[in-house]
């Protein structure tokens, strides 16, 4: 019931959306495709949900070939496209009913699977879908994608544009679904969501930069990272850029993340340099890398 992707490539006109992508998703896994807009995530989703045909390579979903067995796949996957794709002029209940009937089932029949989610939107069941908040829309869309008990769930950027509270709830829901033996492939541009997946593929420009468990990706970060802060952020950026020891220096919220070309670099070295540049309130601390640090290091 997993997913297998072998050497998939796809181009639109001159743009190479996917460039020789290969990976496996194990049955029951929560697998994340992490990358910014234009990384090729949506194209990959459409190939796997049988909506597009790849130029090269092959892929199977739950053992079925995405080109030849497209009918079988359409019966057993749930798909939530990137933008909100429900009928805005239908109520919550009508939407759900509609998707249940086209899959030849009823809400009652599969209620146990969607119960968790549906109780949260049930108070609004007579409201038109177009009038729901972002978080509610996304829960309704997920309910609709689950209504026929799919074996594999494809979620294309389900949390984009959704507030932090709803995002958190959504991920909690995914974790629970995973326990019901549903394989989940989810994409997101938010690096901080990577940690919630079993394994992730960091994607950019149609290629996979790295594929592993999130902790493993962080552990494989090749350098020591220092977070740096002084009283003047803008001058700090400029000064770190011209520092001869600098390997990378990126703004990271209220700090800068700094890595050096020397492996035995110490915080004191940097403090000394910044003092020389007349910075005040200097703060330099070694810190743990994040997925975002890995992503930037890999795509550098």
């Amino acid at each position, binding site marked *: 019931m997993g997913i297998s992707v072998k050497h998939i490539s796809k181009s639109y006109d001159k743009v190479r959306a996917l460039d020789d992508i290969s990976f496996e998703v194990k049955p029951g896994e929560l697998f994340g495709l992490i990358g910014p807009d234009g990384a090729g995530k949506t194209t990959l989703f459409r190939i796997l949900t*049988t*909506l597009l045909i790849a130029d090269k390579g092959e892929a199977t979903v739950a053992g079925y070939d995405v080109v030849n067995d497209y009918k079988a796949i359409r019966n057993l996957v749930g798909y939530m*496209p990137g933008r909100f*794709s429900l*009928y805005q*002029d*239908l109520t919550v209940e009508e939407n759900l009913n*509609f998707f249940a*009937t086209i899959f030849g089932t009823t809400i009652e029949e599969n209620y146990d699977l969607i119960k968790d989610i549906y109780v949260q939107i049930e108070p609004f069941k007579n409201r038109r879908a177009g009038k729901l908040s972002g978080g509610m829309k996304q829960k309704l869309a997920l309910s609709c994608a689950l209504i026929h008990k799919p074996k594999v769930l494809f979620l294309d950027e389900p949390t984009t544009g959704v507030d932090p509270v709803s995002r958190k709830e959504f991920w909690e829901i995914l974790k629970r679904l995973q326990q019901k033996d549903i394989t989940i492939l989810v994409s997101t541009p938010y690096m901080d969501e990577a940690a919630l997946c079993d394994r992730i593929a960091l994607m950019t420009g149609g290629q996979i930069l790295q594929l592993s468990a999130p902790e493993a990706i962080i552990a494989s970060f090749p350098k020591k990272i220092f977070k740096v802060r002084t009283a003047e952020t803008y001058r700090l950026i400029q000064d770190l850029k011209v520092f001869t020891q600098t390997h990378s220096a990126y703004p990271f919220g209220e700090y800068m993340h700094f890595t050096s070309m020397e492996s035995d670099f110490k915080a004191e070295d940097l403090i000394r340099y910044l003092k020389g540049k007349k910075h005040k309130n200097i703060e330099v601390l070694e810190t743990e890398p994040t997925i975002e640090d890995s992503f930037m290091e890999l795509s550098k």
Partner: protein
Amino acid sequence: MKRFIGFIKKEFYHIFRDKRSLFILFGMPIVQVMLFGFAITNEINNVDIAILDHSKDANTKQIIDKISASKYFSIKDFLDNERDIETAFKKGEIKAVLNFEKDFSKKLMTENQATVQILTDATDPNTANTISNYTSSILSSYQELLNKDISIPYQIGVQTRMFYNPELKSVFMFVPGVMTIILMLVSAMMTSISITREKELGTMEILLVSPLKPFQVIVGKVVPYILLSVINAIVIILLSIFVFSMPVEGNLFLLGAETILFIMNALSLGILISTVSASQQTAMMVSLMGLMLPVILLSGFIFPISSMPFPLQVISNIIPARWFIIILKGIMLKGVGLVYLWKETLILVGMTLFFIALSVKKYKIRLE
């Protein structure tokens, strides 16, 4: 089957919840029929005319009385000589002048031949044409009256004679055209828009990744519009019968069957349009430019096909509306049956099958 009914139910929700399309669906037919029936007609009413009577005898007086008695004309002025004619026209108060020649009665009695000159203001050619037709008609009926009174039956040599619908009602000519336009609009444009809307909203993506078969999606989209179009056709026919007292001479079942045939034709065109357009806007433009304009301009609805340049006459053959209007006029006005209309019917059937085959071929089971 349950899937299918669920789908159709959903379509009706869409239709009844969208105020704009509801208006197009039900307001449009009524507005259009009324517009064409009352405002845009070739009829004339109480047109101001002037008389220049050189004889002032019994016959001219009778003719003038007859004209002023008709509701089409009102006599505004009596002129004294030819010079006044131009002045009267220039003032713009009158649309026509009737000029009776000298010794009208005497000439009519002795030579069996007298002349009335009809001068019209041709800056508005349509009205001018109608005025001269109407006057000639009044004159010729007066002639028949004269003939009856004369004991020795001899002919009066007035040639002007025309055939039109006896009550001079142009609305009878317009109803088949309006019905054709509305069925085209509702069936083709609304279906193509409703299918492309799913593409635009992204819901088509979900429908594709579901066990629904493409033809189920299409037929599900089409069925509600067949129903609505039939209701529209009935509304139009009822309006024309009860508001404009239009006769329906032929068989009602045949009329119904031909109408459904044309609706299917328009729907298949709508599906075809939706397979080639990616957005609602494109679908609407294609429907308007590709369907509505030809229906209005090339179907013979407003401009007679026989007076079109040859290339346009050839093009008009591929426009389904042309054939449907012939069928409608045949059944409603002439009261003829399939014996006379089989050729047109066959052409429509052929076109419908062709469009359906093409749409099925063009319909994509994937996104590109």
